[in-house]
Every structure is written in C-alpha cells, then in structure tokens.
C-alpha cells in the first residue's frame, strides 16, 4: 500500500474565518470600550439566531394549536381586539427605530475617539421607555377585555388571546432586561458590540413577532 504524507494544515493565525474563531481568546482584561471593540471577536454571534429560532418554534406551536382548536369545534366566538393594541403596535415599532438610532450612535461612539462623557445613552432610555409603555399597554388591553367580560377561560378565542399576548409580553420583558443590561454595560464602558447587536436583533424580532401575532389575532380571532 502506498504511503501518503499527511500534511499538517497551513493555518493563518490571523484568519479567524472558516476554521473556528478561537473562542473568547482575546478578551482584554483591562476593559475599556474601544479595546473591547477592536480585540473581541464575537463570543457567540449565532446564539441570538438560535434563540430567535426557538422562540419562533414556540409561537409556531401556539399558532398551530390555535388553528387546530378553532377548526375542531363550533364554539369559537370572535371578538374585536381592544383598540389600544394598535397603539401598542405603533409604540413597539417606533421603539425598534429608536433602538436602531441608539445602536448606530453606540457604534459610532465605539469607532470614534470621543470621550467617555459622551456616551449615547439617551436613545437607549427612549427605547426602554417605549418598551415599558408597550408592556403597560398590553396590560391595559387585558383590563379592557376583562371589562368586556372576556376572561382567560371565557372562550377559546380569549384563551388564545391571553396566552399569546402573555407569552409575547414575557419575551418583551426579557428584551427590556437586555436593554437595561447594555445600558449598564455602556455606562461601565465594557459593552461589547456583539451584545449590542444581539440585543437589537432580539428587540426587532420582538417587533416583527408582535406584528405577526397582530395579524394572526386579527385574521383568526
């Protein structure tokens, strides 16, 4: 049998693409926003996509449950969505815009040579406030429904309404936690760009998910 020479691969130590990026090798210990920016490869850039996939699957399960449940029986009673939901939708969409502004400013701040005093946190606060208002608005929507006598167990349509909106609101609360976390990290100048990007993606996803849920509720309830 012929011998083959098994060549060790040529590895460019600076090339982080294709063959593993070396994990969190280069996180500097001294902190500092710009050094974090320059030296930190994303600790995990895929995690946020993975999480969004799992959340999508969960809502897909709820959706299919809704469709099957609606088709299985004649007891489905449609009801008009509380009007505040449209306002809430607007709030959440605007918050996505403000977060995007915030993200760009933070990005520019990380790139630029501005001083720590000029941290662009105000747009983050605006986003936080809008997000919080959205959750409060959802709560108001529930109160309005309760006032109409539509409780969780009143009808399958109301059951699904509460379940879907509550599940979404919980995830939005998680997103608010993320926003608070990046605001804190920014104030400490230890924010990683990846964390910012991931949080922004998650927040936009919450907006998109809500639009989907609104359409679902609008067509199916």
């Amino acid at each position: 049998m012929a011998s083959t020479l098994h060549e060790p691969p040529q590895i460019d130590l600076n090339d982080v693409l294709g063959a593993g990026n070396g994990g969190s090798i280069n996180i500097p210990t001294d902190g500092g926003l710009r050094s974090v920016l320059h030296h930190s490869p994303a600790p995990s850039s895929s995690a946020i996509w993975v999480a969004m996939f799992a959340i999508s699957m969960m809502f897909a399960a709820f959706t299919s449950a809704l469709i099957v449940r609606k088709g299985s029986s004649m007891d489905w009673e449609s009801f008009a969505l509380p009007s505040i939901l449209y306002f809430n939708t607007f709030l959440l969409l605007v918050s996505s815009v403000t977060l995007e502004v915030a993200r760009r400013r933070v990005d520019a701040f990380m790139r630029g040579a501005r001083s720590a005093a000029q941290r662009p946190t105000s747009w983050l606060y605006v986003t936080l406030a809008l997000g919080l208002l959205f959750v409060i608005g959802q709560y108001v929507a529930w109160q309005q429904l309760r006032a109409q006598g539509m409780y969780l167990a009143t009808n399958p349509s109301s059951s699904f309404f509460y379940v879907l909106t509550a599940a979404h609101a919980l995830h939005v609360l998680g997103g608010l936690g993320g926003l608070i976390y990046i605001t804190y990290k920014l104030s400490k100048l230890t924010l990683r760009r990846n964390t910012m990007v991931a949080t922004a993606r998650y927040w936009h996803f919450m907006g998109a998910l809500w639009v989907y849920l609104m359409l679902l509720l609008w067509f199916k309830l």
Partner: protein
Amino acid sequence: MHDMSAPVAHQHAPPTSFIRKYVFSLDHKVIGKQYYGLALLAAYVGMGLSWLMRFHLAWNSTAIPGLQFLSASGAPGGVMTPEYYLQLMTMHGTIMVFFVLTTAPFAAFGNYFLPIQVGAEDMPFPRFNMMSFWVTFTAFLVLMSSFFVGDGPTLGGWTQYAPLNAIGSVGGPGQGTGVVLWAVSIALFCVGQLLGALNFISTTLDLRVKGMSMMRLPLSAWSWFITSCIGLTAFAVLMPACILVILDHVAGTSFFVASGLVMNDQVLPHSGGSTLLWQHLFWFFGHPEVYIAIVPSMGIVSHILLANQRKPMLSQRVLIYSMGALAVLSYMVYGHHMFVSGMNPFSSLVFSFPTLVITIPSTIIVLIWTFSLYGSKLRINSASLFSLGFISMFVSGGVSGFFLAQPSIDIMLHATYFVVGHFHLVMGVAAMFGIFAGTYFWFPKITGRMMSEPLGKLHFWLSFVGAYCIFMPFHYLGMAGNVRRYSTFVDDFLQPLIPVHKFITIAAFVTGAAQLIFLYNLFYSRFKGAPAPDNPWEATSLEWSTATPPPFDNFGGKHPIVYHDPYQYGVKSSVGDYVMQTSPEQVETEFEEK
C-alpha cells in the same frame, strides 16, 4: 509541541467558595458532572420503579413488603392497586425518557466534553448553563414531589394523552395535582434543555479553536450539535403544549377537552377542545425526542469505537450526514405514533413513507460502524464492549421499526408489548449502553482514575445478556397480542402469556442487580481506582491532549491549535499509531481512508 497555542484570558476566574465551586458552579465540567449525578439518581429511581412494576406483573396479588409505607392507598397491605401501577409506570417513563436518556448522554457528557472537544475554555453563556442544570434539577424535584402530594403522581403514561390529562381529578387518582406537577416539571425541563441547546449550538458554531473546522469536529461533538438542533425545535413545541395543559387545569380553559364528556354521570364543564391537538403537539416533540436520546449515544459510540479500532471510519462525512438526515426526518415521521388515533387515514400513509425512509440513514450508520471494523485492530475493553453491544441492540431494536412504520401492521401491533420492546431496545437499552460506554471511556479523564475493568466486563455481560432476555420476549408478547399498560392480565387470552412475564421479571431483577455492580465500580474507582494517565486510550481528540482531570479553563491558560482531522489512527507518528489533533507533526500513513 502544544506550546504554540495562543495565550488566553478568562471570562471568569476559578471560584473559591464551596457553593460557587460545586453547587452553583459556572464551570461546564462541574455542570456536566451535576447532570451526570442527576441522571444517575434518576436512573436508579426509574429502575426501582420498573422492579416494582415487573414484580406486580408477574405476581400480581402478592404483597411487596414495605410498599404500603410508600403509599398507603396505592398499595394497601403492600398489594399494588391498578392505579398505583399506572402511576409508577408513568413516573418510570417520564423519569427515564427525560431525566436519564436526555440528560445523561446529551446534557451530562455534552456539557463536560463539547467545549473541550472544540477547544473552548467554557460555554459562551455559563450563567445560562448553570440555570439549565438547576432548572432541570428543579423539574426533577417537582416531578418527584408528586409522589407525596395529593393522591399521588399522574397515571396517564409518559405521553399524557388528552383529554385524560386535562379533565382533572375526576379522571382518577393523580389526574389533578399529579398532572399539573407533571406538566410544570416538563415545562421546566424544556426551559432547561432549551438553555442547554442554545449553549451547545453556539459553542459548536462560535467557540471552535483555530484549525477546528466543522469537519474536524469529533463525531461525539457532531452528535451533540445535531441533538441540540433537534432539541431546540422539539422542546420549544412541548413547552407550549404543557402550558396549555396547565391552563386547562388551573384556569378552566378548554384546549384539550371536548364537549359533552361524561364522568361519574356528570357532564364535564369543559367544551369544544381538541383531543388530537395534544397528540400532534406531543408527538411533534415525542418522535424527535427518540433521536435526542439516541443520537448522542451514536456519537459517543463512534468516538469510542474509533479509539479502539485504531483506524478511521469508512467515512466520517457519511456518518455526519446520516445523523443529520435522522434529525431532519425525525420531524416528518411523528404521525406514525398516531396511525390508529382517528387521524385522517390518508395522513397515516403520508407519515408512513418518511418513517420507512428513516431506516435508510439508520442502516447506513450501522453499516459504516460494522464495516469499519473490517481490517481493524479492535481493542476489547469495557468501553468498546458496550459500544459493540450498542450496535447489536440498536440493530435489534431498529428492525422492529420496519413493522411499526407500516400503518397496516400497526393495526395489530399498536399499543402492544411489541412497541414497548421496540423502543426499550432502540432508545432505552441502546442509549443506556452509550451512556455506559461513555462512562467507562471518559471516567479516567473526569476523575483521574481508571475504572475497574473486571467489574466493567462483568457489568457488560450481565447487562447485555440480561437486556436481551428482558426485551426480546416483549416482541413475542406483542405479536401474540399482549396489550401494554395493563397492571394485571385479567383477559382469558393473556393467561398463557403470564409465564413469559415471569421470565422477563426474573431477567429484569438479575439485570437490574448488575447495575449495582456499575454503581459500586463508579464509587470504588472514584476513590480507589488506579491513577489514570492523560491519554489512557491513545486517543486523538482534544480532551486527551489536556491534563487529567482538565484544569479549570480546560487547557491550562492556553488555547490549543488543531492541525489534524479528529481520528488520525493507523498512522506512523512519534507517539505510535495515532496523531493528536493538536500535534503539528507531519505523519505518514500507510492506510488512507476517506
């Protein structure tokens, strides 16, 4: 030669307090060990339950001394009641499927070895990882608490079919609080595993060291990665299903309870729910769950066989693609659990074909394993024996899938012991063999001590022959029409089969006792075993290139660099017939297989 590795700084420093070091540890290795401990505890509880059940099936009116102290109403005078049998059965199934077969090969070994095998110092989200374990542990406590609350655990079986799972205590003992605790436990379990899967996937995708391309990942790492992908989808569907069941109980909704159902001459207050909805949601999780249990063991067994056969697999790629195909197909076949459920009969045919097709990747995997042994230099030890036993068990359990994949034959075999035999062999025993193989193989790395080989081999022989004696007759019982989930065989028809049940029970007691040898070996070797070298099996992957046991950051302040494919066996190098993945040495091979 490892010194070319890059220097490293940690995300988190080694903890010093006892609590942070051993209890709420962020270290993936400690979490892996915690998962293993949980699985071990759960496995012995589950085995104990199976002993009680088997005893009752063989001698159903004989008292089991002391059982009345476990449940006075469930076992008056020590004689098991029908509902107590079902409660034990449900707990056996739930504990084994979720807390043993999912946690041990996937969460336990995966947590410990996935980061090491990709060369990372930890998972990317250590806090999520810690939560993953503690949420899972809480789930286990919640499940176990149902033994002591109200009228005991639920009796609805691990599949918890609707509407029995949603009508409340009117359905029988354990159907009130018991079901709620079950559903809460499983929902928590889903959260735990989703957090785990998130970490596993991002570890594999993002934390590979330099040189570690996806195709250079060891097969075990691949199997954990694929399993995480299955789990991510499956658990994300089961959790909403559990939430809906809980709401049916505590909030009075009607997701799963149809109208006009009558219990105890009273019409149930629910209305309009869909009972098939539960089955669809459950089996969309339930079938992939089978692969969540078995794919990690496939990876572990491949990994171990490679180190012991001293030559590469016939094709690494084909194995990976086949495991991937299993993962994808596993979502397209779930309907085969519902052939006679009242689902549209056309759907049964539609589901039957992918189910039959899934035998193709499974066959390819088995063929690659078997034919890779051809011309090898197989080493026989406890780990490789359990791996070979795994192949044998997987084949035996797999061929019965031919029958169950066909709706027409399923008419005769559905809900019989044939099904029980099938899944116990293919996902129960086979996955357990994977866990045992992994334990014998990795124990030296984890603890720094070798396990006793004579005891390991004794454990193997008793388990291997015992498992066949238990589960082969299950198939015969099923073919004769013995229905599963019966606590007593009152049918005239089943009387002649009771001797077979007695045989199985005796085999179960012997096989179960053999597992105590394993437990003894585990603890004995942990403290008294021979000290283990860094690479006792002359294996190539990254876990063997670091110290034994691995330091807190896995590679002692460095990150390794990977130069080779994962299984360079059968080569000529300075160390022998293999070359480590981390060795930059050029090697000559007289044997090349791609």
